[in-house]
């Protein structure tokens, strides 16, 4: 008997309830199995991560402190077998990034060289070309961390993305790689640069200690008032007193009263 006939006969309630009960019980059991599988996978991954970390730390400390090159590490068959697995490379990249953040000078350069020689850089470029925004973000973060300036143009192209997280990641990476050059292109942007993005940009300038601020004033000429506002905030927060004439000019021909007020407030902060 098909469903419609069952409904028409007026005896559909019992089969409906019975079917639904079976369905809920089965679905509950499936979800229970999924939870157990997820917990087991997490435990397994955690165990694996600890094992990998031990080996990775040994390898990377030899790279940093004993001048061991990747060519020598490659000879270790065990390492190379693991290197072929994506999870190992993920853990390796994460550790490499963490170490790179903590070291400067020659040690940081050795880590950068390892990143290039090992081919992890290729993985990052691949990620950059991925369609998924979160994988793109990962690629951008890695390339920027290891100061891969060749990636600058591709990264800047991502600043026009509709996805805000990708946009912010790309702008921050651009600032790390090329300083002011990483934001002047925003003058042409028509999208709203919200305050959260602005705060991130200012923070990137501070974090990466961008000394050369030539070109920041160009932001004040943008048709996009949120970009102008960003320029004013940057000038104020970085205390760029040399930009006062540009701010003064803006305050006389501001596109709206909010910008005019903001410019006057920056002038006040920088001249007192």
């Amino acid at each position: 008997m098909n469903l419609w006939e069952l409904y028409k006969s007026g005896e559909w309630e019992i089969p409906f309830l019975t079917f639904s009960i079976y369905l809920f019980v089965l679905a509950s059991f499936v979800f229970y199995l999924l939870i157990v599988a997820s917990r087991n996978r997490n435990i397994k991954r955690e165990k694996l991560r600890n094992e990998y970390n031990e080996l990775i730390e040994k390898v990377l400390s030899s790279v940093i402190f004993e001048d061991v090159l990747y060519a020598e590490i490659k000879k270790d068959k065990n390492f190379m077998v693991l290197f072929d697995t994506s999870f190992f490379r993920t853990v390796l990249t994460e550790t490499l990034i963490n170490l790179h953040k903590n070291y400067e000078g020659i040690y940081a350069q050795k880590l950068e060289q390892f990143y290039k020689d090992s081919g992890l850089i290729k993985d990052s470029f691949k990620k950059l070309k991925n369609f998924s925004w979160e994988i793109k973000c990962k690629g951008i973060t890695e390339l920027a961390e290891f100061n891969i300036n060749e990636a600058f143009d591709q990264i800047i192209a991502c600043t026009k993305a509709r996805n805000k997280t990708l946009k912010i990641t790309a702008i921050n990476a651009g600032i790390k790689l090329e300083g002011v050059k990483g934001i002047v292109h925003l003058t042409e942007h028509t999208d709203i640069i919200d305050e959260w993005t602005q705060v991130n940009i200012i923070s990137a300038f501070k974090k990466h200690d961008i000394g050369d601020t030539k070109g920041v004033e160009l932001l004040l000429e943008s048709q996009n008032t949120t970009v102008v506002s960003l320029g004013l905030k940057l000038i104020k927060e970085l205390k760029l007193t040399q930009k006062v004439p540009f701010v003064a000019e803006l305050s006389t021909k501001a596109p709206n009263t909010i910008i005019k007020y903001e410019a006057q407030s920056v002038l006040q902060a920088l001249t007192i």
Partner: protein
Amino acid sequence: MTFFNTDITWFLDVYILLILGYAILIMSSYLILAYLSQKELRGYLKKNSFVDYEVLLTSEFAPKLSLIAPAYNEGFTIEENVKSLLSLNYNNYQVIVVNDGSKDNSMEILVKTYDLVLTDLDIHPKIETKKIKGIYTSRNAAFKKLIVVDKENGGKADALNVGLNIAQNPYVVCIDVDCILDKDSLLKLAKPFLESQGKRIIATGGVVRIANQCIIKNGRLVEVNIPDVMLPRIQVLEYLRAFLLGRMAWGRLDGLLLISGAFGAFDKEIAILAGGYSTKTVGEDMELIVRMRRYMLENKLPYAVSYIPDPLCWTEAPEDFKIFKKQRSRWMRGTIETLSFHKRMFLNPKYKLLGMLSVPYWTLFEFLAPGIEFIGLVITFIFIIFGLLNWHFFFLLLLFVYSFAVFFSVIALFSEERTYHKYPKQADFFKLLMAAFIEPIYFHPLTVYSALIGYKEKIMGTKGWGEMTRKGFTKK
């Protein structure tokens, strides 16, 4: 007699159809909301993994916040709770503790611990409140963020309104003083205010979780545990269901009617323009959000309410039935009062999604559900008395509802497992799973009973909160 029998058969058919129809409607709505919540949650977590909240710590452009913490007879824990509020990860904020005419020694403890002195703060109250006895600030520079207001007792809403009048910053965060906040909670709560694009963010809310039997050290949560006592244990599950599978979806639809009174941030200007907290209801948290939304819609101002799924605030759930009953009956009264104050929004297209979906949903599934269940129970008893009950159908119906409730709880556990994974211990997971099986037969009837008490209290004109005693957290 034949006519009577025909009538009864017809009535039975209609009754069964209505019961099943209502159950299917409520279950489908839960599943749709759960699906939307999961989608939103996954997106949020993906985005969040690239967010650096610390940029707000060093920025002078971070939104300036005023924390308002009303306190009534909190002498036992107030010293530590205020200390924890003063040590949150945020720069641009002040803490306003409003002592709402406590009968205990809360005020003496605050004055002594924080070296408080009376001060002449220039305030221009925009909302009428009970009389302020004194405003105190600290002589100690380490507590310069702290303002303590001593006032006549007027209830939580009145104390919050005093805070709104005194707050010097454009955003206020209203919290329960006995809640345990995550160290980064303010950073997360403040971010949405910077993200508005053409729409004004009028409020943001975070997830509240149950802290019973969790270990607290220096006002911070250091170890998450599942309570051994069944009542708070099931409330852990209930909160997971509500926050992970419900509110996130309403947030996505921008139809959220409630930001928990335990932890929420508001645009002060809009909160004041809307009239502040209402002292005429015990559901002041829900009522304020509805009124703020209504204000924005009636004035045709583009706005949004943001919701953060991260567990930012941990609170103590009632452990005995007496306190639980008081809490839930009060929640029901609050719901009835809010829906009745704003009844003109019901199915009114002028209020868009809020009027056409959120308010009807709350009316049908939050306000009326316990009443409908009760009527169903009464009719079932009548059927039993007259020998009309089809026992086979009756048990199938019970099993249908029971299996769905267990299924929905398991989805909540799955969601928690795949997202925040706050209960990693195997024993805790099985405790929650057990709770999922017990919830429909033990906890649900208690909530329905408490809600019915809420109806009764509303009809009898009961006002106020009633005494809410707490056991206190486990400290390390």
